[in-house]
């Protein structure tokens, strides 16, 4: 629910305030008045506020109210008869969030004019205060008087207009008679404008994985959200929103659809659209979007760029070298004294462009794959070779608003297809959070030495990072080091993290976009969550599709959810349509309980499909470590 601060004075009788109070009472306006601030103790609006049990504050004569407003951080500030100065700082802190009612017709551009209903030019009354302005309608012999609700900007009596109203001037009108009629209309447009601003939002989520389902599930719980659309979505997202059949390779088509369908917020799941600049495109079209822009997405889009960036800003990372020809890379491998090394394709390779090598010949083969055979296409134009680090891998995801970084709980992914980390790499076979061996001190250290320097470095390079930053870390003896950056939520880490997140996801995302993350509540439940991914047999290579999934039921339990990935609805049946099919996710007070609760749901007569395959050891390592510690 949107929070409002209404600023009044002893001018007038607080009718605007009353109109807002009434609209909220009637549930017409989806907002609450956080506070009524008055510049004078004798304002009648204070009486109205007290009658309705709304907190009030009377400012001292020399107080501009900046501090209290900044601390309370309401979504909108309504100036209802306020006469004290609005400082430039406040306007900067609340861009398009301070509403004012001006007794004149504000045009959309500084050199424009608004036409009256009868086609004559209306009066702006720029710089005129109420009585003077109303009188001006009369002495200028205008046919209509009128008012505008607008957002405050640095230009006085000008800013984005939310609503206008007209009142025909009648014979014999005086300032009082005219204003008394206009005021009724003013109250109306003030409430109407607020209604529009406080209306529940329509959300579009781009992607089709378990991650997108989990994000949708979480944001569905926000009181501010109206409809959720998924593009393209999957068999599970249908239950919480609508799936849109749209080519997500084409950013422009998505943007046009979002504009046409009045989407208030678009959340980008996968990295592809981010790297190809979907955020820049949306912003250019005036659409609200969550995710980093193309410049910031280079952190994931180019491993070489990321390496150079970490070197420049001294962010801890394994020793790394960038090569643009296979020859150079191989010469380097030959000379290298490293025990093992990691070869990476520079560009995006759907999570498969990382090859861990224990010998030099393996490394040379890897370079051949990447740079000669171009198995990953253009992503292999250049390559990065890094020393292989020893230690535990963890994922740290963090919300960023360009200035502030707030990490989520630590989590751990399980990349290999088989138990005990055997077999080839996959997109992720399961995850859990929080990771028991990432203490709050370690998380603070990671924030200080990795996350914050990353955002700071980007900022210094003129790149504003707004979105989720994912740091894939190795916890080495020398401290945490960055193996890779991702510029989005991880899959499947997102599934347990969303189950653990207590705060409203919509508010967090909104604050990331607005740059007010610092003041926003990001809290997690105590306890643990686990996600076990069910895949089709054969994955990550060839696998069968079209198997009917049995045992699915509506899950009302917020602590147990099945997030869909490769599923679709066909003839009223949910069938498999991808390699990773489902992510069964459970929460409990301890990790052990969460693990057993989750696995209990999987199997014949429970959640099951033919040729189902999954790991049985998700979070086992963490449990062993905690066992050892308990054993002490």
């Amino acid at each position, binding site marked *: 629910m949107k929070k409002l601060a209404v600023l009044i004075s002893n001018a007038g009788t607080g009718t605007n305030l009353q109109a807002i109070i009434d609209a909220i009472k009637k549930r017409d306006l989806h907002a609450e008045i956080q506070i009524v601030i008055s510049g004078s103790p004798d304002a009648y609006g204070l009486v109205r506020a007290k009658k309705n049990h709304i907190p009030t504050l009377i400012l001292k004569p*020399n*107080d*501009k109210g900046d501090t209290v407003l900044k601390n309370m951080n309401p979504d909108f500030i309504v100036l209802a008869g306020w006469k*004290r100065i*609005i400082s430039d700082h406040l306007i900067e802190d609340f861009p398009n969030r301070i509403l004012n009612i001006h007794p004149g017709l504000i045009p959309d551009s500084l050199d424009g004019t608004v036409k009256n209903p009868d086609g004559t030019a209306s009066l702006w009354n720029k*710089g005129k*205060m109420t009585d*003077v302005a109303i009188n001006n309608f009369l002495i200028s012999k205008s046919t209509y008087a009128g008012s505008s609700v607008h957002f405050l900007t*640095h230009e006085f*009596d000008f800013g984005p207009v939310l609503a206008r109203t007209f009142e025909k001037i009648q014979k014999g009108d005086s300032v009082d008679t005219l204003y008394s009629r206009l005021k009724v209309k003013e109250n109306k447009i003030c409430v109407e404008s607020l209604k529009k601003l406080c209306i529940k939002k329509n959300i579009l989520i781009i992607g089709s994985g378990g991650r997108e389902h989990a994000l949708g599930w979480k944001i569905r719980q926000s009181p501010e959200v109206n409809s959720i659309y998924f593009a393209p979505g999957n068999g599970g997202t249908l239950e919480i929103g609508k799936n849109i059949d749209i080519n997500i390779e084409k950013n422009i088509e998505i943007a046009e659809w979002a504009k046409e369908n009045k989407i208030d917020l678009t959340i980008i799941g996968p990295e592809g659209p981010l790297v190809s600049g979907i955020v820049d495109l949306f912003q250019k079209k005036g659409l609200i979007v969550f995710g980093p822009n193309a410049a910031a997405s280079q952190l994931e889009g180019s491993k070489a760029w990321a390496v150079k960036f970490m070197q420049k800003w001294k962010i801890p990372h394994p020793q790394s070298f960038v090569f643009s020809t296979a020859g150079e890379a191989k010469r380097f491998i030959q000379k290298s004294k490293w025990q093992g090394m990691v070869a990476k394709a520079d560009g995006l390779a759907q999570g498969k462009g990382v090859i861990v090598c224990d010998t030099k010949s393996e490394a040379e083969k890897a370079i051949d794959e990447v740079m000669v055979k171009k198995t990953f296409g253009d992503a292999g134009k250049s390559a990065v070779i890094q020393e292989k680090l020893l230690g535990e891998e963890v994922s740290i995801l963090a919300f960023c608003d360009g200035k502030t970084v707030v990490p989520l709980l630590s989590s751990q992914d399980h990349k290999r297809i088989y138990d005990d980390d055997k077999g080839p790499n996959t997109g992720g076979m399961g995850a859990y959070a929080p990771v028991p061996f990432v203490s709050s001190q370690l998380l603070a250290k990671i924030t200080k030495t990795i996350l914050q320097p990353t955002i700071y470095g980007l900022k210094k390079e003129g790149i504003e990072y707004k979105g989720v930053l994912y740091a894939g870390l190795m916890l080495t003896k020398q401290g945490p080091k960055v193996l890779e950056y991702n510029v989005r939520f991880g899959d499947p880490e997102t599934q347990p993290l969303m189950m653990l997140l207590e705060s409203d996801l919509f508010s967090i995302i909104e604050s990331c976009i607005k740059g007010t993350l610092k003041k926003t509540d990001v809290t997690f439940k105590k306890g643990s969550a686990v996600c076990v991914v069910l895949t089709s047999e054969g994955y990550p290579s060839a696998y069968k599709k079209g198997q009917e999934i049995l045992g699915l039921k509506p899950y009302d339990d917020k602590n147990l959810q099945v997030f869909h990935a490769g599923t679709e609805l066909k003839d009223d049946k949910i069938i498999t349509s991808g390699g990773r099919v489902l992510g069964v996710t459970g929460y409990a007070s301890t990790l052990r309980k969460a693990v057993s609760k989750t696995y209990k749901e999987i199997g014949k007569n429970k959640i099951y499909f033919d040729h189902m395959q999954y790991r049985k050891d998700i979070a086992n390592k963490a449990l062993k470590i905690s066992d050892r510690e308990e054993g002490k």
Partner: protein
Amino acid sequence: MQLALLAASGVQHRGQQGAGVALQYKKGVKLYTGAGLLHDVFPKYVVNRLNKPSKWTLIHCRYGTHGGYDKRNLQPCIVTSREGVKIAVVHNGEFVGTEKIRKLISKEAPPDISDTYIFAQLLAETEGLTWEHRVIHALSQVNGAYSLLIGIDGKLFVARDEMGIRPLILGQIKDKWIVASETHALVKAGAVILREVKRGEIIRIDANGISVIKRGIEGAGHFCDFEWAYFGRPDSLLPTHEQPDSGKHPSDWLSLSTFRERCGAIIASESPIPRATFVLGIPDSGMAVATGYANAMKLPYRQVIIRDHFDPHGSQRLFMRDDQIKRIKKKVLGKLSLIADKHTWKDAIVVLGDDSIVRGNVAAKITKAVFAMGAKEVHWVIGFPPVAHPCYLGVSIRTKEELIAYRYQSDVKRIAKKIGATSVNYISRKGFIRARLLSNDFKTSQDPSHIFLANGGCAGCVTGCYPVSREGETHKFMLNSVL
């Protein structure tokens, strides 16, 4: 600060009682004022101390027309708004109806405080969401003669009264802006003269550059005629405002020097003295009138009275020091020096030219001195009609009684007798107006005393008819159709 000081030296002649500066530094507003001329108030060590980057700098040379002469009334005048924001105001002109404004403000204003302070306090108490609203609103409640600069936070507001009584010129130095009462100040600072601030206009200058927040009124208002005759420096330019579209560009403006020469030529046609031995102008503002007269009459011009720049009062204008009327007489001859060779003066018929006669003190002293040198006749030619009424719009003529023309009902014979001169020849009212018009667009009025008002002037000091009354009522006058 140095640039401001340089520019201010270009308007030093307009105010010599004291000077002051207000600067908006990053940390806040700094005010520095003192009595005397700029070089007295701002010795080098003071300038060095103030010479820091500032968003705006207001500098003012005080010429008290209202309020007491003590230091408190020196400008810039600084008041604090209820929010604790410092407001700095400099003002050229004089508000009318100050008693009414006094009642609008809650704070008890000291009895001898200046009109500028009262206005600044009004502005500080005005309510409104933005300073733009407040400035517009506060100015809508006052009347009179004002060319104002108001510095608030990072903003500088520039405003001029609706009659356009006092001058205000806008100029530019690269990406900086400069506003001053005379073009000469802009030239001194190396600025490009852009335009005059229109009457009734309010301009805001801030980080985004310049924007007009209240549109001004086109065309002539009621510009002070005494500015033309006496106040302005001869090398300053002023627009003549005859036709709606003319004179917009500074290159079309008229210099005060040229204007005053024209006055001299017009007096020559109105009151010729062909028998004169030579013509002589009283330094500095009388010289142009006398030159114009001499040229028109084809009479020799001789600068046999010179200004003594090294006299203790040599650089000051005597009329300005109205706080010391009694002492003016004594100073006259110290400041001016007569070339003392007898051949020049013996039996000569001398025509003395001056811009105006206000109190007659200077004229009487000089007449006496010239006769003492052996002259046979002393004739005065005066480039401004008789000043018989006080001015409450920005020139310090506070009482009628001090005016020689009032005391002798503008009777030139009686005035001549009082001064001791053979004759006193004022320019006619019509002649004066014609001198400042580039075209022949001269308008007549039903009531002859409205002649200046009909032709874009004020000259209330000549006619007693002012564009706005002392209480703040706008004067209504009838225009005759042009004959």
